[in-house]
């Protein structure tokens, strides 16, 4: 449904994105993840026909965003990063304008407006001036604007930015409810958000796509170290446990999880699989093993790994060049 091939965009001499390639299938909810300034908004502006790319092609539903711009725009509902609203209008009037501008025929306009108003929970404020609404409601009006006319593709640029936690939860469930009928592409710099709402994640950093996978797949694929949580019945000292299992090949780091000395986090090299050996030695010591459990790296940590890997890699070529 969405197809980006080799998208590159220069602002003057500075590349904002380089060779960005990904695709989104029909009905998928895909997250576009990256730190601030990574090029998310730039990519999205190209997809929504706001700006043409310097090179590369973007297609929506098989139509080129640059050549069939007007037709493509008909298929997209877009919520930009700074929610664009005519603040002097009432919610209803604004949505009327949106419906008219999107070319929705006059007969179905009324029904369509009622539909998005109830879908976005705007019934109570539909007669109020947008300028007087809270940030959360404005965001919903922005979303309502994107949903009007029920376009097959919904593109949201940081839809939860600036909302309070309760509003974020509401927004996410709203987005989740879109899955199925629409193809949704949403950008974010917050991981849990993407993990909770999306089937798939495209990670972008410094203008380049660094990974594309499901949230679980990403975690699995990028786990270089596996962590184990150990819960003991009897408290032990740091040196004791270190001498007992620190020598096992594959054990990298042992850190206490709390002060009591009963709970420990052990970082291991997954490829060497030291777990059976650890268990055996602890049983022999009679420390009363209660629990031994591997903990997955959170998506947040995977993300940090991806992003920081990228950063540490950069100075290397410079050094070799010098």
């Amino acid at each position, binding site marked *: 449904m969405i197809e980006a091939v080799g998208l590159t965009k220069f602002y003057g001499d500075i590349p904002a994105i380089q060779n960005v390639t990904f695709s989104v299938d029909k009905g998928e909810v895909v997250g576009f993840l990256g730190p601030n300034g990574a090029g998310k908004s730039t990519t999205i502006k190209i997809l929504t026909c706001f700006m043409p790319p310097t090179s590369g092609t973007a297609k929506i539903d098989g139509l080129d965003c640059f050549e069939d711009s*007007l037709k493509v725009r008909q298929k997209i509902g877009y919520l930009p990063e700074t929610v664009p609203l005519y603040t002097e209008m009432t919610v209803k009037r604004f949505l009327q304008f949106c419906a008219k501008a999107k070319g929705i025929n006059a007969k179905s306009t009324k029904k369509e407006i009622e539909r998005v108003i109830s879908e976005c929970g705007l019934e109570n404020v539909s007669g109020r001036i947008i300028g007087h609404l809270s940030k959360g409601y404005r965001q919903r009006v922005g979303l309502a604007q994107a949903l009007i006319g029920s376009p097959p593709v919904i593109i949201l640029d940081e839809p939860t930015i600036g909302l309070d936690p309760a509003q974020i939860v509401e927004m996410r469930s709203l987005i989740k409810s879109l899955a199925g009928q629409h193809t949704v592409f949403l950008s974010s710099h917050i991981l849990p958000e993407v993990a909770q709402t999306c089937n798939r994640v495209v990670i972008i950093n410094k203008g380049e796509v660094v990974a594309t996978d499901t949230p679980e797949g990403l975690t699995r694929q990028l786990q270089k170290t596996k962590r184990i949580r150990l819960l003991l019945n009897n408290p032990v000292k740091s040196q004791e446990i270190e001498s007992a299992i620190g020598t096992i090949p594959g054990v990298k780091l042992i850190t206490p999880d709390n002060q009591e000395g009963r709970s420990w986090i052990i970082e291991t090299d997954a490829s060497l699989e030291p777990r059976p050996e650890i268990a055996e030695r602890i049983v022999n010591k009679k420390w009363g093993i209660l629990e031994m459990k591997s903990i997955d790296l959170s998506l947040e940590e995977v993300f940090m790994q991806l992003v920081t890997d990228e950063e540490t890699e950069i100075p290397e070529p410079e050094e070799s060049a010098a």
Partner: protein
Amino acid sequence: MKGFWAVYKKELYSFWSSPIFYVIAFVFFILSGYFFYSSLAYYSMVSFQASQNPFLAQQLNLTSMVIRPFFLDLSVVLLLLSPLLTMKLFAEERKSGTIELLLTYPISDAATVWAKFCGVLTIFCLLMLGTLPSMMLLEYLSKPNWSVIAACYGGLILMGAAFLSLGLFTSSLTQNQIIAATLSFGALLGFWIISWMKSIAQNYTARKVFEYLSITQHLDPFTKGLLDTRHIIYYILFIAFFIFLTRRRIDSYRWYG
């Protein structure tokens, strides 16, 4: 021209709901009322003297003593006020980010630009309509030449449209409404006083060029009741040129953000 009416209606609404429009209308009507009153008062004073002086009575002419000065005065007021009408057209949309809506909705850029231009022109014509009662008053007092008045309105609206097209362009240059208004005011004033150059121009062609460029030179014939295609074409070219520049500006905005 898909989406033209939606944007046009929105433009009208945004004028309606903005205090700037009412302030402009208020100032405009006060000033135009004052100018009308002063030319009429002068006329009545002269006509009172003319009742004792038959030579003066021959000179007495409602068109050249009231109508023409009134419309020329109005053109100065409009020069001052039209930048204020146009300043927000694109600048405000850029500032609030709503331009991103317009440029990603299924509306062609041409429709957006024309809808904005026609919207502000409609507002301008409403202001003109507000001066009509003064002309009605003339009808009540004596017999004005209505075809001259019609030509005056035609010329003023053409000139106003030219002012507005320039303001539309400067508004697309910046996010700041004050800057947009200042630029368009400066440019309009430049087009106004360029005719002064003709007195110091060295050769005939330069003189003619300066004269042709001047935005006021072309209003003059209208106020005498003359409809000359040359002057109509000047204004139409002027408008077309700035609409074209505005479209180019939107293109470049799309490219460079």
